[in-house]
Structures are given as C-alpha cells and as structure tokens.
C-alpha cells in the first residue's frame, strides 16, 4: 500500500513508516506532500493518509499515530510497546513519559535541520528506530562506564 502524510517529518511521521514497513506491510511506500494536499493526493494515489487530523490513522487523545497503529494491528512485541512510549513522549512533548524521549527529540529535530529531503530524512530515521529496537530488545540492561584517574 501507499501511505501519505504531511511533509517535513520529524518523529511520528518517521517512526510510523518504520513500524509499518517492519511490522504491518513490507511493501509499503511512503509519500510526503504539503499539509493541505494530503487528502486530495491520498484519493488520487489511493494512498492511506496518516498523522493528520481527520484521518483514521492519527492522534487519539494523548496517544500519537504510532500508538494507533500498534493498537489497530495488535502489535504485542514488548519492544514495540516501549518504543511507542518513547515516540509518544517525544512527539507530544511529554518528555516525562520516557527518559529516552528528550534525546530522541533532540536528535530528530537536528536531523530534520540537516536533511531537507524528506526521503533522505526517512532513510536515516529508519536506522534510528532500528537502533532503538535493538537497544530495547538486546542492549537495554547494558551499562557503560570506565574511568582513569589523574595521578
């Protein structure tokens, strides 16, 4: 399927494509257009509009579009649920929900400054969520320290 949303993605519009591509629809294709063209283009291209008010796939109360996809497609992988919380926290500016949110936001906001091409941004962003997923699944209990003393 084709999935369409507003241009200049930062969090949810990168995280959702990652989720869709990996866990919902391997063949998914993603399209970014100016905000006021999303619904017209969606009809024209037979694409599913997402992360825009008025679409089925959008924010719901305190929850973001990523959460809606998790719910709708009954994704139960605990790592996905953990990422959902981080994405929600970063996307809705509720950093207190997950300690990783402030860092994800800073990195995503910075990436968006550095990469003006939405698809380049998407390609890099996918690696970020791949990383978060691996961290959640395999590396989250790891800690990291060492110290050398000044003599």
């Amino acid at each position, binding site marked *: 399927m084709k999935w369409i949303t507003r241009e200049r993605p930062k969090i949810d519009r990168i995280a959702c494509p990652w989720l869709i591509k990996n866990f919902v629809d391997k063949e998914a294709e993603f399209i970014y257009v100016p905000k006021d063209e999303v619904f017209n283009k969606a009809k024209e291209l037979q694409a599913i509009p997402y992360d825009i008010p008025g679409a089925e796939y959008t*924010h719901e109360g305190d929850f973001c579009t990523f959460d809606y996809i998790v719910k709708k497609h009954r994704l139960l992988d605990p790592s996905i649920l953990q990422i959902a919380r981080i994405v929600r926290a970063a996307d809705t500016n509720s950093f207190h929900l997950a300690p990783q949110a402030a860092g994800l*936001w*800073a990195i995503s906001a910075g990436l968006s400054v*550095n990469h003006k091409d939405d698809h380049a941004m998407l390609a*890099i962003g996918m*690696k970020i969520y791949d*990383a978060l997923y691996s961290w959640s699944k395999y590396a*989250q209990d790891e800690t990291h*320290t060492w110290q*050398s003393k000044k003599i």
Partner: protein
Amino acid sequence: MKWITRESPKIDRIACPWLIRNFVDREAEFIYVPAEMVREKAKDLDAIPFDIPGVEFSHYEDKCTFDYIIEKYKLTDPALNTLAVIVRGADTDRHDIASQASGLWAISAGLAYNIKDDYVLLERGMMLYDALYSWAKHLQKEKHTQNPVDHIFIDVYNKFIKQKSLKRKTPDWVRELRQIIQDQVDSNLNLTEVSKSLDINPSYLSREFSKHFNNLSFGEYIRKLRIEKAIELIKQKKYALTEIAYLTGFSDQSHFTRIFKQHTGKSPSAYRKEWEKGNANTKG
C-alpha cells in the same frame, strides 16, 4: 593526523572523532584496534591514542575524553558545551546530568548492536552528533506538537502542574536538584552545569537556592552533604581518611580536614577517635 583507539566504539569513541574532524583537524583519520593493541599500533602508525586509560586524551575524574578535547583545544562554541554534558552523561552512565543522555545512549547502543563494522558505525554515528549539534545550536528551545489542540492541552496541563507545585511550594526543579545533588555529591558539581541541565538561569538558581535548601547557598549545602556522608563513612570503619576525602568529593586531604572541622568542630581523625571510643564504651 591519525588517531587510534579501542574497537567497538559506542559514545566517546564516536563523539571524539566527530569533534576532532569538525573542530580540530579536518584531515583526521581514525583507527580502531583491539584494546591491548592501541599503544603498540599508535607507535607503529604514528597515531595519537585516545580514550584509553593512561594516555593524554582520556577520562579525567568525572569528565570524559570529549571534555578533555574541548578543554585542550579551548573550544568555546556554547553548542559544544551543551553537547559535552550530553556525551558525558551517556558515556559515564550519569543520565541524570542531561535529559538527552538516555536517548543518545539507547540509540548509540542499538546502532552498535546493528552495525558490526566500526568504520560504518563511525560514519553513521557522526550523523547523530551532526544532528545533536544542529539541535543545540538552533532548536534547543523549540517544542514539538502536532496541532493547536495539543498546544491548548499542554498549556492547561502546564498550568495545572504549576498550580499544583505552587500549592506544594516546592517547585519541580527543587526536587530534581535535590536528587541530582544527592546522587552526585562525590563529583565536581558546579552551579553553572547544574543550572544548564535543569534549564534554569544560573543566577536565578543561585538566588532561589537558599529559599528551598535551609537557607544554605549551593556550595554550603553540598559541603554539608559531603560532611554528612564523610561522618557516615567514618562510622563504617572501612575506609582510611584519605579514601573518605576522595569518596566525598574533596580534591585534597587538607581541604577535607578544614571543612570537616568547620562543620563539626573537630578534625576527622579526632572525630573518628572519639566515635570509636564512644562506641567501644557502649559495647563494653
């Protein structure tokens, strides 16, 4: 120049190359080898070893190699200072000193898990620091929400939280700060850094501090906690006084002795003697 360090980089060994290439040496080349080969290969290849114990470019006390490079090359870009605290937080497992540290750590640990080639990882990782740098430089204050309704919701929520904390009379930052100080009483905490991590103006913090911390200034409060911790350690009888001075964050023994005396009226050794005597008596 060539720069050489241990293989399987995660934070500091990615962040330092980023810093070096962008701010110190554009032509820098980076080499990763097994930890035990770094010194030898450094000589062979005429490379500068970094981020291993015992070399110049390394961790010092609570600072990491990234901090050392900033200090050494006198880099004064404020965005780099913001970045340094995040890198240090992620690299030394003190995620409380910068709110972005946990996220940087999670993403870096995951990238390292996914990418086994250190040089590919380096190129990918550089993008993270490019991004953090742009964020620190241009967007630090920007918030992100999807639509106006969210803004209204957040405003109301913030007001609600504010009112709640007014009623409590203890602002959130005070509780957060108390926790930070508690956790890091043994490190070189300073007001400027702490205010940065709390996102509060340092002079405001310094002014407001004593209102919430028993009329003590920032420095006085930290010294008080350090002495309390020292007393606790003396009573445990497990440590020499030099160790206790170190464990409570005093840079040298005589400074420790002086401050201890100011607070308790006795020198640490006199205090220990008396306590041991008193304790022996009760046992007898």
